[in-house]
């Protein structure tokens, strides 16, 4: 458990509040050099505001602000308020792409937040996994030894040379590749490698062959991005769906993520329905023109 840190304790200290508020009053009054106007728009500094500013400062800087820093914070905050309100009054927010996009984003967050998605029941979860197996599939793995043949070392006899060794290996008890074939910087022994990893190392064609070749026997020659290989597959597992117990948490997350998207779409559609979409006549006639 995380205990309340010192500064958050301090934030709760009445004396600290007193000092802060004192500093603020000092600042506010020092700014009040104009005559009083009953109808002047108001910017009200609340205790919550002070706390929020102090809190933000503390989180960013790792310490509490001094009175001077607090004053700077407030000054900025007020400046922003004043300019923001004047700008709004002037209608500067209208058709501003940044504001539009930002508010769109806010709506999305609002939806996400308000729509607390419940976890799936056991049955729902089972069904979900069955309907989306690819999301949870454990990729096939393979363990094998490989013997490499470098094309430039064999000129026209690459495949022949590989086949010659293959025959000999097949009647031997050798199951490892140590000391065989040509030198390569490729690893010669692979343990429990995922299909996708073999794919990124050797290329698609090789992977396909390695995952369909016989196990516990020398096989090949298979072509890769580098040259030609003989392989001895010690073990191979197939793509498989793990038992629900092993993936329950992940399945829940994926399920909730999908539900969230669905709910968002429902929200949007319910709002969209309130609008009548009118296509301007001019657009229609343009469209007709272009169809012709």
């Amino acid at each position, binding site marked *: 458990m995380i205990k309340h840190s010192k500064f958050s304790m301090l934030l709760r200290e009445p004396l600290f509040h007193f000092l802060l508020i004192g500093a603020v009053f000092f600042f506010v009054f020092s700014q009040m050099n104009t005559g009083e106007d009953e109808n002047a728009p108001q910017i009200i500094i609340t205790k*919550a*505001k002070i706390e*929020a500013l102090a809190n*933000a*400062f503390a*989180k*960013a*800087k*790792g310490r509490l602000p001094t009175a001077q820093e607090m004053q700077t*914070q407030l*000054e900025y905050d007020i400046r922003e308020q004043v300019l923001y309100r004047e700008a709004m009054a002037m209608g500067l927010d209208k058709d501003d*792409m*940044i504001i539009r*996009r*930002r508010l769109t*984003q*806010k709506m999305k*967050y*609002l*939806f996400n*937040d*308000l*729509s*607390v998605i419940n976890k799936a029941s056991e049955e729902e979860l089972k069904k979900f996994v069955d309907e989306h197996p690819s999301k949870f599939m454990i990729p096939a793995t393979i363990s094998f030894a490989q013997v490499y043949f*470098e094309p*430039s*070392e064999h000129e026209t006899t690459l495949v022949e*040379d590989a086949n010659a*060794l293959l025959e*000999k290996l097949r*009647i*031997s*008890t050798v199951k*490892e590749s*140590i*000391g*065989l*074939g*040509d*030198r390569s*910087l490729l690893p*010669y*022994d692979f*343990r429990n490698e995922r299909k*996708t990893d073999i794919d*990124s190392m*050797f*290329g698609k064609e090789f992977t396909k062959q390695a995952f369909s070749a016989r196990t516990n026997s020398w096989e090949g020659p298979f072509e*890769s*991005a*580098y040259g030609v290989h003989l392989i001895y597959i010690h073990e191979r597992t197939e793509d498989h769906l793990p038992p629900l117990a092993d993936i329950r948490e992940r399945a829940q*997350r994926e399920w909730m*993520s999908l539900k969230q998207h*669905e*709910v968002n779409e*429902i*929200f949007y*559609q*319910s709002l969209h329905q*309130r609008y009548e979409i009118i296509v301007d006549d001019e657009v229609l006639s343009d469209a007709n023109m272009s169809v012709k």
Partner: protein
Amino acid sequence: MKNLSNIRQLSLATALALLLTQGLLASDIGLAGTITPDSLVKGLYPGKGYSPYANRDFPSNVYWGDTHLHTGVSLDAGLFGNILGHEDAYRLARGEQITASTGVDVKLSRPLDWLVIADHSDMMGIAADIQSGAPNILADPKGKEWHEGFKKGGKAAGEAAFDLITHFAQMKLPEKLVSDYSPGSKVYDDLWHDITKTADRFNEPGRFTALIGYEWTSVPKGFNMHRNVILRDGGERARQVIPLTTQPPLGTQDPLELYKWLENYEKKTGGKALAISHNGNLSNGWMFPTEDTYAGGKVDKNYVEQRAKWEPLYEVTQIKGDGETHPLLSPNDEFANYGTWAIGNLDLTQLKKDDMLQREYAREALKNGMKLEKKLGTNPYKFGMVGATDSHTSLSTAEEENFFGKSTSVEPSKDRVSHPFIKSKLGEISGDMLLASGYQGVWASENTREGIFDAMKRKETYATTGPRMSVRFFGGWEYTDDDLRSRAPAFRGYEKGVPMGGDLKQAPKGKKAPTFMVYALRDPIGANLDRIQIIKGWMDDKGNTHEKVYDVSWSGDRKPDAKGKLPSVGNTVDLEAANWLNTIGASELATIWTDPDFDANQKSFYYARVIEIPTPRWVVYDKVRLGAEIPKGTQLIHQERAYTSPIWYAPKKK
């Protein structure tokens, strides 16, 4: 100077001979008395048992990732129309197909192993104010009613949404709800909360690593001083702080303040953090200061110590240009002129002057770092190499044939190549100059937050301009060709020396010059390799710095001319088909190289540069696939590359 095919010792014939002499292939195979692999191995691994995996304590895998991706959460990215968030970015990176903001389906050729989403910290507070108040909402009767409606889904949810919106519009929200969602409320910083939670959700140790980070986008007067912050830790620690911003009153443009933030983060949470700067090429001489800092400070003892402590890496290549070196700084380097963007600052309000270059590029900074170390006791620019995208599309794409551009507005389209990246009264950085770059290869012991972060911290990383070639680089005093011939040279690499990012150990008695083991495999779905080079920088007795590029391994039987220049590898690019052939170059290159000009009294550094054969740039794919018109003068063909972190040498202190 040999390439690998020259040093292959055990050819097929010898292998067979070996088997035969040991009686292995006799017709009585399978009977008792056949040899075990142990006897075959004898002599190959001195001091080791048979299993290469037992007791292995060095990183055996290179993990690919991007430290610098923006999503729609970044204000500028959103403005350009990026509607994808963190979840989408992780899904694409881990190999899923998603739909880009422009409606086009997109998938990576291969998944990445890890990702840092580094959205701009400024303006991250947005939307925060309406986030995550669920328990509070439930406390209010009206809120509860909506909540129930949403839960039911379908029509009821639609009605609830309608009701909620109506209340919003009429300012009739329950007071409790309003106060919960006001700026400055307890939930104010909850976008950060959300970001860190999503990272935790997508972080799957051993499979895909989601490192938490953000970009501190300091750009005083358009001078690019950006840094990405990366945390080693999970959300629980990350949420104890909020990212540092640059806008007043809380934010700051001064890197020293960022270092304080990092210090505070570690102290407060017990976690670990680092920062990576990028695009010195757009800083107009301020990225690697040697005298004064832009923030008004001096490059003094404190500055160099802090920078060395917090910035172990530099992002040397990305979409906004390549920052290894510049032709004016490295006139003898025939590959220096690669995507440098030496035009001006980020918004082109000030043009470039030649004098600025020396404080902008990585190689020169590595050299100046030695000077500063002499003067101030610490080398502030002792960094490793990072390649990243800085893409603002939520799509970490760095391959020429799958490049989704810098921002959503320049995702694949027929005319994107003609959109200027930036245009001002002073000049233009044209759209075709964007680089489809880059990724970072990290040699780590495991694909976890700790594994990746720790490898970054020890600089065991390298940058590429996009292709995923495997590159190893070791420095020591006793490497021999036999080490390279061993079946797993990395064992010897670690046994007898240090990997990329390390410091050369002191020379054993009798050893006059350091040796380096370097080898590279091409990207399995990419282009062959032209050559490996080692770039050396050193400081002479007078304190002046120098550099030299050595070709150390190359394909084919090319011979350097009298001046030592290696003939070009050739060119197989077919511009009509956007294709090339791997009929030139080599799929692997490797060598042991001894510094022929070594002086034990001079500080120096060495890093490897691996150059691919020529391939088409992304613009050519646009032309072939989309029928784009390529502006005159556009570069069509290039040689992609990898830069390893350096290995440093320092004379023994007397």
